């Protein structure tokens, strides 16, 4: 066992040794160790290198506050960059490597930066790397290569993550002394509780506490409270779980680490679970972070926070050194001195307070600590580990140091600059903080949320005071839910404990014989190498707001987000500005409390579950026919049906030929369908469509265009009058949800007096669209109770009928321009009818067709597709449907359509286009040049000056039935330019001459569809 592991004590499991690897060396620790405590047990302090100067960095803290102890954990697809050794439970087979150093952490090439550190102050990169003009890319390459800490895994993550919703009456964050007391009170008061703690074991600081509570050891008391809580079914406890974000109305996110503490081979199931908690009341008990002391080379490995040293000794049975200096400005740190003494270490206490007086000081002195009052450590010496502490006496006014120095040989400097309450979660939703001049820290003040902070995160650092405050906080939370609730603690925490009213006096920056600029670098942000001199430089250059200083010096920008040094930095800034700390203020506390994996924040909605795949009843049939698919919103639609030898062009050529010659079938089930019932149904339709619907008789259908209130086209579709006061509206696939919302918004908020009800029936009906000259024969052969004679069953009408045994609605609506019978069948029976149609059509070479062919044939007829011919900026006039504009009635968009620009002649209007050479299929999105001569400029891109354009091609295909390519386009003043030849250019720079023509190419009179 190494000389740093204490022979007894701590709560590590000594008969469960665990071997692990650090930078290729095999070491060992115990179950219950963190990677940090195990490394310290092996005398390994040096972990990594700092960001800018690549100075050696060692373990300094015990949890989320540590800016230095970052490692690349694990290898291959399970590697995680920038993991904190202080937050990593040890497991057998753990592999960790230092980050941001090459070739090794001991011999890092980039360490040369330290010697150039005078050339690299804060913000140096704004001042240089500017010559020659375009050279930034060259410098950036090298800067980026040296930037960043860990590396991103190069294989996809094999693990699973998930989200869970949780509702809690009282949520307690943190299970230290205050948190346990709060949960105990709420539990006894009968509330339903969620208790969350980021450690594997409940207790927090109690796990390293030597004092007694309720006449038992702090550890035993913690275990007794835990036992009572676990016995109460209304209490849920989450360990290894961190509350990472506090959002409005008491919504908190908690990430539970489920198996990162196990060896890789033992891991199974979900790796991390994100709890989405809605709590009626929240009690925050997250504790506090210790502040460092800011003196020359205070960043050398072997420098630790005093509280962390106490924890390593008492909880992990590891002494981080043998001969220590404890440099403090407060009474609290003396318990750390006693811990070191009890571990057999030599301790020299350097207390900046000449007038330091407290029972703990007497106890420490009695146990052998030598205490120097009114002294400071001005500098630490050492290379990759601290070797000496330079101690000097403060001048009587405390603002300077006397000349002579004491040099003390040490292998550990424990520092304590006072404590910062963890006000992060309190502040996430705009909670205010107040500066406490006596405790020298920011404490939580008001908050818009139903929350209370208790214990040291509220500035109540004394153990017994925080138990009282925790219990009171938990009870008051429970009483807010049930005013009659009561609870008793059952004992009085040592009222006049000798550790009460501990004091602290300011020592934000240790004075030196010279100015901070000329003395050894004193670090405020250990990860980003921000020194006190950098803060003063920022002020000198005009950066006075704390936000400016933070951004200019990168203070608090690291992965610890300034948990350790930010307040010291703000104090140094206040001093430089001649202001108080409250006047200088803090930077903004933001989620995430501690870095959290993207996988946990994303959850399980990945791969096919990323977004629903909506399927029509015939989905499996399309797959069996080898359909290729197209995403249309959340729907999958069959795009085309290639046989073995066909590409898209060949397949659509076949499909669009047979639709005109024989018969072809489209699955149109994805269109939106809205059932409209009520005495004011017709009036309602009149108000939302540009054309009139009051005269539409039962059994008849009518095409309508819908504008938004700004007068632009938002959707179109056919509406059928099913009976008196009963209509069925269809919408585009993509527009279905938006149209239903649009209609409901107007109905509920603007026209509540209209008696009409809307119900979506999109999924109730499947739509089998049978197109082509032979369509009638096929449908007629399957339906004996409908008279198919074109007088009895004319175009744009519908009949109820039984098709292949199923009760259907047959509609004579056509989007292909061919004779079409659209069979609407209740969805469960759709496959049955679909198969019957195909069986009946075999003799006529019946063929399925997809959206690509649908696009071609509707373009042959000049039918628009909302969202392709239109883009939210087109009016009904622009697409040639001005005639449908009813002059008699008011409708949505009509007033806006009268605005000047919406009637101007130079607007883009829908036209047909065909290539002059009769062969070239123009690209969709190709643009029409205003001046044909500009074509000559297109040889050398990018153009020096923009050239004028008159519009673009919205749809473009080869049309087998026409024997030449056809296109639809929107062109300035297009309706008056038929016959004109224009030049068209696409994104590849191809140019072709095309002729503007009417939008309808095929069956101009529309005889076929009748």
């Amino acid at each position, binding site marked *: 066992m190494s000389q740093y592991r204490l022979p007894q004590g701590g709560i590590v499991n000594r008969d469960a040794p665990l071997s692990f690897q650090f930078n290729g060396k095999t070491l060992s620790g115990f179950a219950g160790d963190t990677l940090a405590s195990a490394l310290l047990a092996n005398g390994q302090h040096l972990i990594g290198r700092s960001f800018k100067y690549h100075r050696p960095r060692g373990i300094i803290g015990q949890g989320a506050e540590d800016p230095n102890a970052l490692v690349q954990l694990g290898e291959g697809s399970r590697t995680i960059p920038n993991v904190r050794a202080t937050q990593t439970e040890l497991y057998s087979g753990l592999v960790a490597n230092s980050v941001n150093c090459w070739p090794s952490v001991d011999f890092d090439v980039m360490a040369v930066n330290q010697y150039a550190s005078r050339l690299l102050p804060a913000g140096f990169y704004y001042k240089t790397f500017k010559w020659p003009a375009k050279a930034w890319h060259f410098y950036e390459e090298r800067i980026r290569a040296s930037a960043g800490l860990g590396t991103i895994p190069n294989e996809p993550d094999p693990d699973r993550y998930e989200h869970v*919703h949780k509702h809690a009456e009282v949520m307690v964050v943190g299970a230290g002394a205050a948190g346990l007391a709060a949960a105990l009170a709420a539990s006894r008061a009968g509330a339903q509780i969620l208790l969350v703690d980021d450690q594997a074991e409940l207790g927090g600081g109690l796990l390293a506490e030597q004092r007694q509570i309720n006449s038992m050891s702090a550890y035993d008391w913690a275990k007794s409270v835990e036992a009572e809580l676990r016995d109460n079914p209304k209490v849920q406890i989450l360990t290894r779980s961190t509350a990472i974000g506090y*959002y*409005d*109305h*008491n*919504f908190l996110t908690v990430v539970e680490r489920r198996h990162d503490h196990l060896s890789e081979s033992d891991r199974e199931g979900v790796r991390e679970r994100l709890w*989405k908690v*809605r709590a009626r009341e929240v009690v925050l008990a997250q504790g506090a972070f210790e502040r460092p002391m800011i003196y020359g080379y205070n960043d050398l490995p072997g420098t630790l926070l005093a509280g962390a040293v106490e924890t390593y000794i008492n909880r992990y049975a590891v002494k981080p050194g043998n001969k220590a200096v404890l440099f403090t400005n407060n009474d609290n740190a003396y318990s750390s001195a006693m811990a070191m003494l009890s571990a057999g270490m030599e301790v020299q206490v350097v207390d900046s307070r000449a007038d330091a007086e407290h029972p703990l000081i007497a106890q420490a002195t009695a146990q052998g600590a030598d205490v120097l009052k009114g002294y400071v450590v001005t500098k630490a010496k050492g290379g990759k580990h601290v070797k000496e502490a330079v101690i000097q006496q403060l001048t009587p006014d405390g603002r300077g140091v006397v000349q002579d120095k004491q040099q003390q040989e040490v292998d550990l400097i424990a520092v304590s600059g006072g404590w910062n309450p963890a006000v992060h979660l309190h502040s996430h*939703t*705009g909670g205010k903080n107040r500066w406490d001049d006596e405790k020298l820290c920011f404490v939580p003040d008001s908050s*818009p949320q139903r929350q209370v902070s208790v214990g040291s995160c509220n500035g109540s650092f004394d153990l017994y005071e925080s138990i009282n405050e925790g219990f009171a906080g938990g009870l008051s939370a429970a009483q807010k839910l049930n005013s009659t609730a009561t609870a008793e603690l059952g004992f009085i925490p040592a009222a006049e404990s000798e550790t009460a009213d501990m004091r602290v006096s300011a020592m934000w920056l240790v004075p030196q014989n010279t100015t901070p600029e000329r003395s050894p670098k004193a670090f405020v942000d250990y990860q980003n190498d921000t020194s006190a001199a950098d803060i003063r430089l920022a002020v000198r250059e005009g950066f006075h707001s704390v936000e400016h200083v933070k951004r200019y010096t990168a203070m608090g920008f690291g992965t610890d987000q300034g948990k350790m040094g930010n307040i010291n930095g703000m104090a140094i800034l206040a001093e430089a500005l001649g202001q108080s700390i409250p006047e200088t203020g803090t930077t903004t506390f933001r989620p995430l409390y501690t870095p959290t994996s993207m996988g946990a924040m994303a959850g399980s909605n990945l791969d096919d579950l990323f977004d629903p795949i909506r399927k029509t009843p015939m989905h499996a049939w399309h797959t069996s026919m080898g359909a290729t698919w197209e995403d249309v919103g959340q729907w999958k639609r069959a795009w085309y049906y290639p046989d073995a030898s066909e590409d898209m062009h060949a397949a659509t050529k076949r499909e669009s030929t047979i639709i005109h010659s024989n018969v072809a079938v489209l699955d149109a089930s994805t269109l939106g369908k809205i059932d409209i019932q009520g005495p004011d149904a017709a009036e309602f339709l009149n108000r939302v469509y540009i054309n009139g619907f009051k005269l539409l008789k039962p059994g008849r259908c009518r095409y309508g265009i819908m504008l938004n*209130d*700004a007068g632009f086209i938002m959707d179109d579709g056919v509406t059928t009058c099913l009976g008196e006061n009963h209509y069925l509206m269809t919408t585009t696939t993509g527009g279905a949800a938006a149209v239903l*919302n649009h209609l*409901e*918004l107007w109905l*509920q*908020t*603007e026209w*509540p*007096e209209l008696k009409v009800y809307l119900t979506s029936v999109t999924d109730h009906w499947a739509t089998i669209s049978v197109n082509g000259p032979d369509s009638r024969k096929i449908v007629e052969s399957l339906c004996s109770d409908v008279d198919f004679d074109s007088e009895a069953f004319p175009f744009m009408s519908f009949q109820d009928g039984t098709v292949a045994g199923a009760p259907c609605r047959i509609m004579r609506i056509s989007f292909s321009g061919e004779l079409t019978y659209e069979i609407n069948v209740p969805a469960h029976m759709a496959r049955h009818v679909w198969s019957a149609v195909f069986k009946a059509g075999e003799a006529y070479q019946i063929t399925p067709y997809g959206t690509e062919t649908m696009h071609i044939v509707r373009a042959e007829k000049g039918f628009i597709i909302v969202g392709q011919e239109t883009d939210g900026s087109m009016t009904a006039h622009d697409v040639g449907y001005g005639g449908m504009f009813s002059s008699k009635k*008011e409708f949505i968009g*009509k*007033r*806006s359509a*009268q*605005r*000047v620009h919406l009637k101007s002649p130079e607007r883009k209007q829908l036209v047909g286009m065909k290539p002059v050479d009769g062969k070239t299929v123009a690209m969709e999105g190709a643009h029409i040049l205003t001046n044909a001569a500009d074509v000559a400029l297109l040889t050398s891109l990018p153009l020096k000056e923009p050239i004028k354009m008159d519009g673009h091609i919205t749809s473009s295909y080869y049309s087998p039935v026409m024997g030449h390519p056809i296109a639809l386009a929107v062109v300035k003043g297009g309706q008056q330019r038929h016959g004109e030849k224009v030049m068209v250019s696409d994104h590849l720079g191809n140019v072709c001459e095309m002729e503007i023509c009417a939008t309808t190419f095929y069956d101009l009179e529309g005889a076929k569809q009748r």
Partner: protein
Amino acid sequence: MYEIDCPWCGLRDESEFHCTGEAHIIRPEDPYALDDAQWTDYLHHRSNPKGLHFEQWQHSSGCRKWFNVARDTVTYEIKAVYKVDEPKPAFLLTDDQSANQATVESSEVKA
């Protein structure tokens, strides 16, 4: 992440709702009596206040009804939830606001 008290379904998570902009924007009785500038005031201009805002929300994944919410756009506190046909809650209005609310209400009552 808001929690909104739907007038019918009670307290529900924000993910079930959708905000569709400012409330109490009354469609002019006769749009054609307005010139384009006045029409634009109705169509596009919004108060967009930094503070108390009366807005429309839809319980899109629940009962699908619209309702109004009075919310502070800085602290995100929801001060009141009320139905579409109800006036702005009086306790939230300053004196002059409640004065012009009275006039607005009278014009809002349709024939």
